[in-house]
């Protein structure tokens, strides 16, 4: 039961696709890409607003997987594997492209994601109507410290367990709890009460 819990329903399908694609099944590979591209891309937007960079990084990641399909590991945790691999690649890429070569991952100041996604010509719309809960929630999430944003994404977008998040981010499980707790506290402070209970 414990083991199964961190493998949600469609993870079993992902694991099957993984096995098939390792055995040269092109169709299985394409299906896997289709099924997991979205979560990886959205995860990438937590670190950089450069969408093309994220896309290129994902192209490279998947092509590398295809090239090395004979030697990569069998795993029942395909999504976590992909998330982790993508995270490493993206970090490496961002670090390479930044003008600050000495920044380490911990002190690295990730490019800030704009708190407002809509282009400027939409400004009047914001003024017009009471800002919707969804919009203010989005802004609030984007204002969280980067590491908290990452935990919040992995928890609330992808629904990973604390253990999985700890593994992906290479931190203690307790740290995940702390990040989530702090994120919730900050969200509560920034958002209208009616969003919470």
């Amino acid at each position, binding site marked *: 039961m414990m083991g199964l*819990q961190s493998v*949600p*329903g469609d993870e079993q399908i992902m694991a099957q696709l993984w096995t098939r694609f390792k055995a040269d099944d*092109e169709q299985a*590979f*394409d299906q896997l*890409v*289709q099924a997991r*591209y*979205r979560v990886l*891309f*959205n995860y990438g*937007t*937590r670190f950089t607003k450069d*969408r093309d960079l994220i*896309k290129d990084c*994902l*192209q490279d990641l*998947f*092509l590398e997987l*295809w*090239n090395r399909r004979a030697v990569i590991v069998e795993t029942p945790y395909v999504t976590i594997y992909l998330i982790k691999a993508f995270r490493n690649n993206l970090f490496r890429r961002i670090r390479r492209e930044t003008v600050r070569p000495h920044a380490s991952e911990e002190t690295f100041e990730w490019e800030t994601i704009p708190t407002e*996604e*809509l*282009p400027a*010509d*939409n400004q*009047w*719309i914001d003024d*017009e*109507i009471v*800002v*919707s*809960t*969804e*919009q203010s*929630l*989005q802004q609030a*999430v984007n204002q969280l410290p980067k590491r908290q944003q990452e935990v*919040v*994404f992995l*928890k*609330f*977008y992808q*629904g990973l*367990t604390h253990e999985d998040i700890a593994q992906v981010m290479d931190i203690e499980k307790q740290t995940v709890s702390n990040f*989530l707790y702090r994120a*919730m506290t900050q969200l509560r402070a920034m958002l209208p009460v009616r*969003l*919470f*209970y």
Partner: protein
Amino acid sequence: MPDYRNYSFDDFILDDRFRDWVLENSPTDQAFWNEWLQMNPDKVDVVLAARQFVSQMKQVQENLSDEELASEVARIQINRRKIQEPNQLQSPKRFRVWAQIAAAIALIGLSTLAFYYWYTPTTPIAIYQRTVEQQAGTLQEVENTSNASQLVRLPDGSKVTLYKGSRISFPRAFTSQQREVFLVGEAFFDIVRRPKQPFMVYTNQLTTKVLGTSFTVRAYRDDKEAKVVVRTGKVSVFRTPPSGKLSEMGSNEPALILTPNQQATYQASDRLLERSLVALPEPLMNSAGQPQTLVFDHTPVVSVFEKLEAVFGIVINYDAELLAGCELTAEFGSESLFEKLDLICRATDSTYEVIDAQIVVHSKGCR
């Protein structure tokens, strides 16, 4: 199984089973939670709040449109085939790749030709046709060939009243970032509010962008004039660029912002986009529903104007100092806005005109 009765809001939003119910809604989860809620009616509020939070948290972190996803997945597929090819020496497969490349080049050539062919802004319906062709298969088209208006429901629940002889196209499912429809002819739109997902109406000359509101778009293919009329909310209207490039829309085109009872008119002859008041401004929807009777008894005219501004959602310009001594005693019913203004002006010896969708009152003042 945890004891959900002791769960707080935070416990619920972090619970995997709860999350699956909100996001996947499998029959098993549905049955479980429905039963649980019936047994614990005092928890309905916290559960609903947590549900909303979980589903919004997913939504606000979604940044990829369906089109982008499709095109990136296709790019990976193509690149995979490319790297795969050198390893496989069978000539039929190799031929297929060359055929693909040739086909791609031919396609680029053709579409370039098509682009220049359609580019001519004088082709009245170019953008519409091109868009429909480009998105063939993903777009659903409704043409009203009947003699009466036809109600069309969009995938997001918005309602469109399609006038006779008009046609509208829209995707079978909107992307998470935008709701786009293409119109030829005339239609009244009643749009579900979704601030994160602007609603765009493209016509040959005009593009209308809203978050949620109701308005009419009129753009028949042979008309010299295109029009957008706002009933509720606010919309922005700009000219559809000749390239028809949807993605470039709105960034550099100056937009006209319309509020209720205003309209934008586009004249094909001089390509001018102008804002004006509609011929018969109607009281705003939210002012209690019924046609209001306005009763004024020795009321300062300035207050009367303020009342009218509120009821019709318009701007009336006047010199408050000059009008300070003017009073009005009248009972207004179903007269139109302009009839009311006529009466007021006659009573106070003033005149008015409409400039850029605003009323300007000229008065010599009362003593």
